């Protein structure tokens, strides 16, 4: 039951899309989304552990409220209605990130050309699974009234991982139109478990010898790495092991991000990035569990001892019993395996307008002469085991005051068609604080929301001398 409440929490809360941060050039952490973004500051240092805290959770198809509303309707009726409304394409996602440290510095300073180096380390947790429709239906209804229905084992598909990422990026402004960037990453996986390649089915059909025939075609695989320290309860060094894994002592992988910003004219900006093109090799504690069997079963065919002395139904049953034992026998291997990181695409087109111009020429005025407004459209896409998760946002960015920038987004995605988000970056001297949240319309009652994301952080920014 606790599991259900846990699921319930999942129902309330989007995953991985950071539409508010992407393109928010005042915030250094957006370099993690596009290494080829415009950078107009000299350097920055993130406040350790506080520079970027991000939490993102969501589910397609249903909200917590749908299930747990205090509405007097029988809980089991609601659960049944929800279960029947969800299908195998519906999914649950949770993502959390916390930056341990980050910093960046301009190596070559000139307005036309510049080279900006940034680096840091963050920890990330990602859980993603599809609604296992056929498994749930089988648990709910059984196979009775489901004659000839194929219960697909591929409906079980999930991926979960906790890892730390060390990264170094280089951002180069080539000329007034082009900025490009790349970020190299070293992944250190702390724990990982996934089962994304399941195949086969279970079905009950009309038999030939007997009324019914059951067909089991099982082809399932579960891969885990790093879990054995949790199995061994006597292990007192668990925390030390985890600390070591965070600091490059886990399963290691390599990857990179690439991105660009193109400004054909000062008012127009086109940018795009690809994140996490890379893979992790799991070899410290890898386990692969395989279930690969086929069985057709019609029942027990008795062998009456009166005329068949050699065998009776019991012998026959023993054979069947053995084949059932074999059917569910799981083979496990300890060989290492490699998995791709989930690749992400971000891209946007935007129009800048409204330059701040003083009526009188004032050579001493140091106020911002850049565009104060920006409107645009943003596309996010991410590779998931069975589909491409996408989101499309329209956004408006505004420099409200010196040191106060706002960005608001309207997002359409698998979770919702009415997701409005707001991000604020504010500076007090060199200290910058930002906070962003989406699904604001649902904040009056989070339970009605299918997804929620929240992101905040503190940075110490060194302004560009030439600005």
């Amino acid at each position, binding site marked *: 039951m606790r599991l259900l409440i846990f699921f319930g929490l999942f129902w309330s809360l989007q995953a991985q899309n950071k539409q508010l941060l992407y393109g928010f050039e005042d915030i250094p952490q957006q370099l993690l989304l596009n290494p080829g973004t415009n950078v107009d500051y000299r350097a920055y240092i993130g406040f350790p552990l506080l520079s970027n805290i991000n939490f993102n959770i969501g589910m397609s198809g249903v909200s917590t*409220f749908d299930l747990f509303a205090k509405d007097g309707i029988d809980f*089991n009726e609601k659960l049944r209605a929800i279960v029947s409304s969800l299908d195998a394409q519906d999914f649950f996602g949770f993502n959390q990130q916390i930056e341990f440290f980050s910093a960046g510095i301009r190596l070559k300073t000139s307005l036309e050309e510049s080279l900006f180096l940034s680096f840091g380390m963050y920890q990330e947790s990602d859980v993603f699974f599809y609604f296992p429709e056929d498994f749930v239906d089988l648990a709910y209804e059984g196979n009775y009234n489901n004659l000839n229905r194929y219960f697909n084992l591929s409906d079980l598909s999930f991926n979960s991982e906790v890892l730390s990422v060390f990264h170094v990026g280089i951002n180069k402004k080539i000329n007034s139109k082009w900025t490009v960037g790349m970020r190299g990453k070293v992944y250190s996986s702390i724990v990982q478990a996934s089962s994304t390649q399941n195949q086969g089915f279970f079905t009950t059909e009309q038999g030939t010898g007997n009324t019914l025939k059951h067909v089991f075609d099982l082809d399932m695989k579960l891969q885990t790495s790093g879990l054995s320290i949790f199995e061994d309860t006597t292990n007192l060094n668990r925390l030390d092991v985890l600390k070591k894994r965070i600091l490059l002592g886990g399963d290691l992988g390599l990857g990179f991000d690439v991105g660009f910003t193109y400004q054909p004219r000062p008012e127009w900006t086109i940018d795009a990035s690809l994140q996490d093109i890379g893979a992790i090799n799991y070899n410290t504690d890898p386990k692969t569990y395989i279930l690969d069997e086929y069985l057709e079963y019609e029942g027990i065919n008795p062998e009456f001892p009166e005329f068949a002395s050699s065998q009776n139904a019991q012998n026959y049953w023993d054979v069947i019993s053995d084949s059932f034992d074999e059917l569910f026998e799981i083979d496990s291997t300890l060989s290492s395996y490699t998995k791709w990181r989930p690749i992400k695409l971000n891209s946007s087109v935007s129009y800048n307008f409204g330059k701040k111009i003083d009526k009188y020429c004032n050579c001493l005025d140091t106020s911002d002469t850049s565009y104060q407004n920006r409107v645009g459209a943003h596309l996010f896409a991410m590779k998931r085991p069975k589909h491409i998760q996408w989101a499309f946002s329209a956004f408006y960015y505004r420099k409200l005051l010196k040191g*106060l920038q706002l960005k608001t987004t309207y997002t359409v995605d698998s979770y919702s068609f009415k997701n409005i988000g707001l991000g*604020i970056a504010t500076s007090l001297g060199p200290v910058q604080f930002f906070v962003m949240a989406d699904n604001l319309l649902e904040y009056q009652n989070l339970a009605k929301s299918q997804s929620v994301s929240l992101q905040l952080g503190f940075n110490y920014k060194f302004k560009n001398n030439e600005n």
Partner: protein
Amino acid sequence: MKKSIQIRSLVTILFIFFINSSCIKGVDFEQAESIILKPITELSLIYTSLDAPDFLDEFGLEFPSITDSVILEVLSDDFLNEYLVRADLVIEVTNSLNKDFEIQMEFYDNSNALQHTFPVLIENSVSNSPIIVEHIEVFTDSSLEALKASNRLDFKLLLLSSPTGSVLTNSSLGAILFKSKVIFYFEITE
């Protein structure tokens, strides 16, 4: 400048306040305590097909009965014991032998004590055309408890004499087909 700082602080604080003011209303997570799943599962049980010579001994004489025992481990399963609320044993017999039968299904526990039994009478087919007999044995309450206590099923076929029936010989026409399945009704709660 001072005013600008005030406005900035105010906007930021208001936004944070707004986020913090979010809440989860009108929901009751305790409801999950009462969740019930009611799957119905059907499973093939025993099947056989016998013709006349199967009922005769080496001298060509009829056996009075033939019996086989099946150990049903599944009945002593904890899951089944806890959540099974009803079971139907569905039997379908097709007889084209000119012979009457009584099928006896006997359920025994660990100490060989009879827990439950029921007969199914099968009429003879004078013209060897198939006669279909269906029987559904429903296990609820005390009979369900008896079923849960059992771990062995004796499947008995008794050969009966009747005015229109014949004595089976090696050349008797027809066959008897026995098919069965069990339907388990579960109510799974925490």
